[in-house]
């Protein structure tokens, strides 16, 4: 019986984690639409645009939702607010999942 509980718990954990962590492949496709023009391939960071590859999911999700709400965080916020406005919750989750996988690799 104990094993069944553990199995149920693990199943729930993985399903839940999947549900909240987004789809990295879909995030990659969304990222390619216009994020990479500033943040570079895989979010490596270019020029004055920061590296976002490898950041954690909660950080990425919170930041994107903050920008989407029109709240400033840092000096170039107006640009991110403009870019984040049309994002859906699902797109934010997908983007966060993609970028958290550190697609640009270690520096």
């Amino acid at each position, binding site marked *: 019986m104990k094993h069944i509980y553990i199995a149920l718990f693990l199943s729930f954990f993985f399903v839940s984690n999947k549900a909240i962590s987004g789809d990295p492949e879909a995030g990659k496709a969304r990222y390619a639409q*216009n994020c990479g*023009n*500033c943040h*570079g*391939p895989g979010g*490596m960071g*270019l*020029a*004055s645009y920061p590296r976002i590859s490898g950041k954690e999911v909660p950080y990425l999700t919170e930041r994107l939702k903050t920008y989407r709400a029109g709240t400033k965080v*840092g*000096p*170039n916020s*107006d*640009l991110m*607010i*403009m*870019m984040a406005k049309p994002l859906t919750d699902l797109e934010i989750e997908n983007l966060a999942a993609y970028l958290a996988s550190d697609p640009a690799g270690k520096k």
Partner: protein
Amino acid sequence: MFKKSKLLSAAIFSAASLLAFNGQADTMGTPKISAMSILNGLENPWDMAFTKKGDMFFTEKCKGFSVKTKKGAVNKLYGMKGTSGYNSAGDDLFCEGQAGMLGIAVDPNFKKNRRIYVASASTAHRGSGCKDNFDVCNGNIIMRFEVSKDMKSVSNRTDIVTDIQYKPFESDHPFGGPGAHNGNRLRFGPEGYLWATTGDRHKGDIPQHPTLLGGNVLRIDTDGKAHPGNNPPKGFDKRMYTYGHRNVQGIDFRPSDGRAFTAEHGPWHNDEITALVNGGNAGWDPKEKVAGRGACPDMYCGYMPNQKEGMLPAARAEAGTPMSDERFKDLMPPAWNNNGLSQGTGSAAFLKGSNWGYWEGRLAVGIMGIAFGGTPSGMRIDIVDITKDGKAIKSVIQMPTGLTKRFRGLRMHNGDLYATVDEGEIYKISARK
């Protein structure tokens, strides 16, 4: 007066011409292009400059400058505050936002005097300025160095220009961080003088200001003094060759007549290529309460109207603060306005050498690709055929490099085109007929 409608007509004609050229590429003698990465793993490489022997100096915006010798060794010569691995460093040099160590040039007489020139943000000459964004802020400088015979060190740093304006604080604008709009491309002209570009640093009165250096192209000697032939309006700083620019990061000299041309970022609209006229005005005036405008955020109207929202590029080109304001009688009209788009023209170099076929003498323009408000990104190098009088273009086509990169700096050397890209590489782009 040159009208936008004419430019757009030229663009449509050019696009049609491109389609025709593609169909007959081989029989027309179009050169074959190949691109090879010659350095990678760099951090925001910005500019490069060559000795006649083929040694390549290059800057990295937040690190310093180095040299890749003809034999292939890379020597880190002079770093910025907080960097390591450089032979020596300047603790006053820093990077912030768009600012940092940017342009670099090799003295035409390098073989004898071993001199190079580097532009950077610096805290060394601020004095009591820079208290806020409206204060005078001497935060961009041009330095002169002497390079050792073994190419492993530099010495005798002399700051030859110490009063190029710098933006010290954040402002209420898109791209509003400190360090915005520095220009800082350095090139030697055919007459042996040093040409330096500067930016408006988000201060409304700078581009039309008679004495503050910003939004200009400077023509100076190697001690930083004005070329005696500069002809700015009465009361202006004599180092100015032109004024009224926004943020010039591309400049080169047409081989056929030595005339200087700039490539310049537009403000959401109208990147421009301009033939310079001694003492001329590029027509950028982002002051508030002029030209029918009211007050603007932090007294800078450079992104108005509706600066926080996307607009159709054509609507913004029509309604936005004009890049080339026809109010000015001494206006230098642009030869090309990128079809009314702003995609980030970061650099320019005339193609030299018969290997470029009928492209020889045309202007290569590096475009970083900035996609806001419905503007297509367009990372590319354009090849622009400019009319003899410099007031229009005959065609613009895209160079088939096979690369989609943020092209930051372009420079010709020995028949090849070299490009720094923000992704951390330097490319050698070659042509053969």
